[in-house]
């Protein structure tokens, strides 16, 4: 089981309570689709993803970015049992969505960079370490039910 110190819990809680999901969610997914273009393979039904401009203004991408970011709320509410919390979503991503779990890390790296851009120097090395630890645990949980 993953251990969280009081300090780590407070850091994570602070980041998310000050996060504008409607801004950060879309930005993270847009960045992922541009920086790692092969990830577009999962979004063929989203319409125009032909270039960075199209991706950045695509309303389906924006909506989905918000949805995915809210997916992290589950971990926030269940920090002591993230693995079990994501079992269902892991099955979904594996059996129904057929997402290569390597992609979870790509999106999580983009989210880190977007949050870093938002917080600037307030995103200290210590806060970055805690945020990345949190995302790594979620990513691991999402990959657990693949077989």
């Amino acid at each position, binding site marked *: 089981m993953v251990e969280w110190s009081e300090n780590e819990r407070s850091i994570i809680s602070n980041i998310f309570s000050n996060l504008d999901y409607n801004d950060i969610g879309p930005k993270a997914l*847009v*960045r992922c689709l*541009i*920086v790692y273009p092969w990830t577009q393979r999962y979004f063929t039904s989203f319409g125009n993803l032909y270039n*960075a401009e199209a*991706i*950045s203004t695509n309303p389906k991408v924006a909506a989905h970015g918000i949805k995915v970011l809210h997916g992290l709320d589950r971990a926030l509410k269940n920090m002591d049992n993230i693995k079990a919390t994501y079992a269902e979503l892991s099955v979904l991503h594996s059996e129904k969505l057929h997402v290569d779990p390597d992609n979870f890390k790509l999106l999580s*790296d983009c989210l*880190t*960079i*977007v949050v*870093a*851009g*938002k*917080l*600037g*120097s307030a*995103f*200290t*090395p*210590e806060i*970055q*370490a805690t945020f*990345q630890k949190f995302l790594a645990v979620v990513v691991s949980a999402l990959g657990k039910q693949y077989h």
Partner: protein
Amino acid sequence: MTSLSAKDKNTVKTFWAKVAGKEEQIGCDAVSRMLTVYPQTKTYFSHWKDLRPGSAPVRKHGATVMAAVTDAVSKIDDLTGALLSLSGLHAFTLRVDPANFKVLSHNLLVVLSTMFPDDFSPEVHVAVDKFLAAVALALSEKYR
């Protein structure tokens, strides 16, 4: 991995002009983050007295690394040639596991994002990421 297009090179050079003057700060911050967020990287610096973020050896090393990356930008058309001796150094003397190049690159991207939030767009991000991957590849040339 793909090679750098003319557009990629241009994007990197244009962005790097904005970075000018802040290399030491960027390098120091990137190395500080690497040591904090990926503690396994500290194993390469057991000879340093102080591994804390912003310490003297961290600052100095950050400056060294960033100077080399900035030099690579100016020689972006032949990274293999430009990084030949540094590749030898990393392969035979330092023997840094090449997986760590990705780790430092990631932290450099994080720093650039914190310092240039308006300029570090997704398009700039992908070009710089490709460039750093190309640098890492050139650095790995002499490993085996």
